[in-house]
């Protein structure tokens, strides 16, 4: 599959300070999470993708267009949901979304029709004529999404899209993102510090550190050692469980709310069930699954 973003040896400096030290990336289509500590170069990378910085040396191609020569063509097909509030004072949601569409090159009527459609989609249908100053944080985030979607981009860039939203709002926003990327084939790059958001919406993850790619991996849990290592979580007498397992020769280490068990040679998960049967109702294991390398683990390893 053709990558949506390709960079070869991308270097960016601000004056004497080098921010990106030669990034080689091939971002696959679908939903990608972009992670990294503050100062790792995420924002510089995104600006390069949008064609807002001089690209040299190195090459950047986005959706098939060269970022050096075809920056405007790129921005016609990309939508950005910025992190900070971006309000144009004196407008309501319909006006602002229409304006956003016109700035991309849509005719006024096309932009207006599409604005209404998109505002309903993001859940602002009823509030779309209200003054922006009266909007809650969640509504502002949705509006930012609407103005990014109005021209039906092929690539959506999002920066901390759930900022300041309460739990139902966050859930709804993440579902919207998942819906456009998996339901409709739009590509998504999500830059955030919240790993669960990435787990919920993305298929692939890129970790930047100090201007370099520190790690690239799929989001799915990578099993540590299939069939050999299990994570158990639950309540009750976990200490008794741990010591019984150790007595039978298995390695046990403590994790949050539970245990990680490495089975002795030749044993399968039945060995654990057998111990659990003996303990009966004194232990309630509510989660029992093969241990995997979580995104958190990957991230910590990548940046240290």
């Amino acid at each position, binding site marked *: 599959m053709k990558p949506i973003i390709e960079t070869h040896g991308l270097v960016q400096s601000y004056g004497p300070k080098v921010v990106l030290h030669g990034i080689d990336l091939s971002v696959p289509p679908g939903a990608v999470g972009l992670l990294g500590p503050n100062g790792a170069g*995420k*924002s510089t990378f*995104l*600006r390069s993708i*949008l064609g*807002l910085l001089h690209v040299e040396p190195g090459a950047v191609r986005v959706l098939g267009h060269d970022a050096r020569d075809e*920056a*405007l*063509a*790129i*921005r*016609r097909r*990309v*939508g*950005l949901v*910025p*992190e*900070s*509030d*971006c*309000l*144009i*004072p*004196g407008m309501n949601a319909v006006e602002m979304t229409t*304006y*956003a569409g*016109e*700035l*991309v*090159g*849509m*005719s006024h009527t*096309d932009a207006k029709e*599409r604005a209404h*459609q998109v505002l309903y*989609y993001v859940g602002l249908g009823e509030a779309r004529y209200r003054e922006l100053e009266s909007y809650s944080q969640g509504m502002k985030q949705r509006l930012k999404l609407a*103005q*990014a*979607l109005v*021209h*039906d981009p092929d690539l959506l*860039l999002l*920066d901390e899209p759930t900022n300041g939203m309460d739990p139902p709002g966050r859930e709804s926003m993440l579902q919207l993102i998942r*819906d*456009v990327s998996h*339901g*409709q084939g739009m590509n998504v790059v999500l*830059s955030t510090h919240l790993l669960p958001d990435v787990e919920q919406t993305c298929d692939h993850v890129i970790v930047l550190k100090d201007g370099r790619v520190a790690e690239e991996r799929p989001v799915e849990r990578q099993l540590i050692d299939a069939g050999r290592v299990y994570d158990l979580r639950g309540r009750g007498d976990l200490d008794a469980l741990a010591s019984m397992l150790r007595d039978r020769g298995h390695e046990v280490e403590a994790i949050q709310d539970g245990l990680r068990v490495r089975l002795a040679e030749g044993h399968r998960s039945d060995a654990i069930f057998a111990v659990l049967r003996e303990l009966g109702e004194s232990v309630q294991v509510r989660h029992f699954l093969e241990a995997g390398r979580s995104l958190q683990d990957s991230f910590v390893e990548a940046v240290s």
Partner: protein
Amino acid sequence: MPIYEQGYQRWNGELQERPLRWWPIVRQGVMAYLPQRKYLLLLGLAWIQKIFDGVQVYGRLKGGEVLEGLLGARVDAGMPFFWASMDNSMIWVVIFTIMVGSDLIAADRRGKALQLYFSKPITRNDYIVGKIGVIATFLLLTTWLPILLLWLFAVMIEPTTAYFARVWSVPLLMTVYSVLLVATAGMIMLAVSATAQRSVFISVTWIVLFGYGFVPVIELVQAITGFEAWSLINMAGNLGQIGAWWFGAETGFDVPPVLALGAVLVGIVAAYWWLRRKIEPVEVVL
């Protein structure tokens, strides 16, 4: 299909080929102000002034001998007359540039809207042209347009070749002059609006830069050197000098017109350079 897809729908429309990328910016900017009563009122007043000029034109062209007899001097509706009309409009230039221009970029900066603009397929120059276009609309509506109509009126009521021969160049010169005027007033205003945050500071700074230069310095330098070199900073004065030069009128300003023109062009370029610096490092993402 009995049940229609309610989720996200893709858009199959076409983006306009080579649109005027800055046009939505001009339109949005103008429509933000124009419907407001105070703007309509001021526009009305500006036009009333021009209507008075229209009456003057009529009087001068049709009742020349009578007035001559009364005042003892020849009155005319030649090039200097049209220039005077423009000169009298300067008050509107100041008023509208300040009212329309001072918050133009400052509001975008306060609302962090610049990142929105630059994530769209417009260049920084498009943005600048669009914003100047907003100021230009109001300035041209109160200077260039009514004066052109005034000229048409004059030529219509005095359709003699002699008269036409004297005033034929008015539309051309007035257009070029208006462009110069808008560029100067507008570019400097945008540069200041992109630098400061509060309208009060912006307005005052613009007035100082455009209208009066550094007055105390001018006096001082004048007193010392006798040559009003520092007057070159006074853009309004420079523009006045240029206009007088092109339209054959007198001014009290002492700067050689060619130098004035040079100073104005330098002013425009300097303001543009400063403005570009201010909007260049826009953080798209934090």
